[in-house]
């Protein structure tokens, strides 16, 4: 996922590959991507259902995370790069020491959001067959016929996970707030 900084690079080929990747991933429904991984790719490379699900989710979220980082990097004032360069820093040093730390802080709120979406998207993977929370719920529901109750419990589990995670993201944001202002 990290190597998706490709998009920002000046290299035309890397940039083009990333562009297609982003267009395809963001232009097609996640459920289709999961199906392709689960029924398609598994035939080409040996991949357990679990890892097929993980791969689909990572590639899917990777696209969005790339865009979050790109947006954050581009939102950093041009003067920052200029000041860094004018002190004799190389482009990469300036990126590493000056631009990325600021961009990373700025991308924490949308990243947190994306992780929560990703967390909930994991239920789709389950839908395709895996036995994660949602899958287990379906099994229990079918076996016990208490369909509604079981789904509510599953929903609550997700809610707890998401709330816990939101709380954590909030904490991190607060902690970084001191120097994030301007």
């Amino acid at each position: 996922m990290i190597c998706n900084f490709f998009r920002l690079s000046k290299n035309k080929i890397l940039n083009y590959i990333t562009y297609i990747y982003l267009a395809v991933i963001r232009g097609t429904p996640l459920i289709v991507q999961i199906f392709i991984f689960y029924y398609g790719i598994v035939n080409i490379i040996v991949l357990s259902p679990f890892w097929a699900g993980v791969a689909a989710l990572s590639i899917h979220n990777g696209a969005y995370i790339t865009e979050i980082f790109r947006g954050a990097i581009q939102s950093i004032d041009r003067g920052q790069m200029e000041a860094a360069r004018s002190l004799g820093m190389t482009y990469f040093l300036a990126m590493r020491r000056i631009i990325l730390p600021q961009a990373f802080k700025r991308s924490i709120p949308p990243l947190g959001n994306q992780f929560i979406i990703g967390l909930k998207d994991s239920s789709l993977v389950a839908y395709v067959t895996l036995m994660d929370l949602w899958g287990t719920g379906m099994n229990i529901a079918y076996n016990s016929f208490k369909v509604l109750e079981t789904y509510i419990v599953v929903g609550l589990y997700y809610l707890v996970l998401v709330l816990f995670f939101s709380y954590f993201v909030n904490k991190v944001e607060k902690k970084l707030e001191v120097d994030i202002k301007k």
Partner: protein
Amino acid sequence: MMKIKKLNKFFGELHVLKDIDLEIKRGEVIVIIGASGCGKSTLLRCLNFLEIFDSGEIWIKGEKIDPKKDNLNKVRENVGMVFQRFNLFPHKTAIENVAEALIHVKKYEKEEAFKIAKKLLEKVKLLERANNYPSQLSGGEMQRVAIARVLAMKPDIMLIDEPTSSLDPELIDEVLQTMKSLANEGVTMLVVTHEMGFAREMADRVIVMDGGKIIEEGSPDEIFDRPEKERTREFLSKIL
């Protein structure tokens, strides 16, 4: 110290710098004035290669700089730049801002770098603000930190672009004082400013730019009291 010959710069069709010739001696303080958009900032930016000139020559300490071949990072280490909008690193404290390039460009030990940074903050009278982040500083304080940050590199020349024009009036003086003390220490400076008091008192030479050209140059008295060009007079009447 620095010599500029027939420098030209275009932005697309726009001819921003036209045959600029300028020689800067060691220890000299040169003030550039001119109407908005006449190319003052562009000239400074060309001199530390944030913009690359299209034709002409730049010589620094007897060496002609070739932007294609020479290591511009090395050149920039010795040509400091102070920006109108400070451009401090907001995720670093005042002292970290000053020490940053010492540690990562000059490769000083951390301890040594912070010792130097501390001395420089003392010099710009901001020692007690060393551990504040830029967001906790006033504009004048930020600009003084920015000056200290450049001083840390011990540049041969400092390019200073409208250092006070984004400051509240009551904060301008502290920055000008800092610059005066540097000038008195013999720091070579090329300053774009419309602070006539500073120019009169400190400048060895004043340069008037108009439409991408240097139209007049001379001592502060010559330029301010007996300008030769009509354009200069027009401009001065507007800002005085």
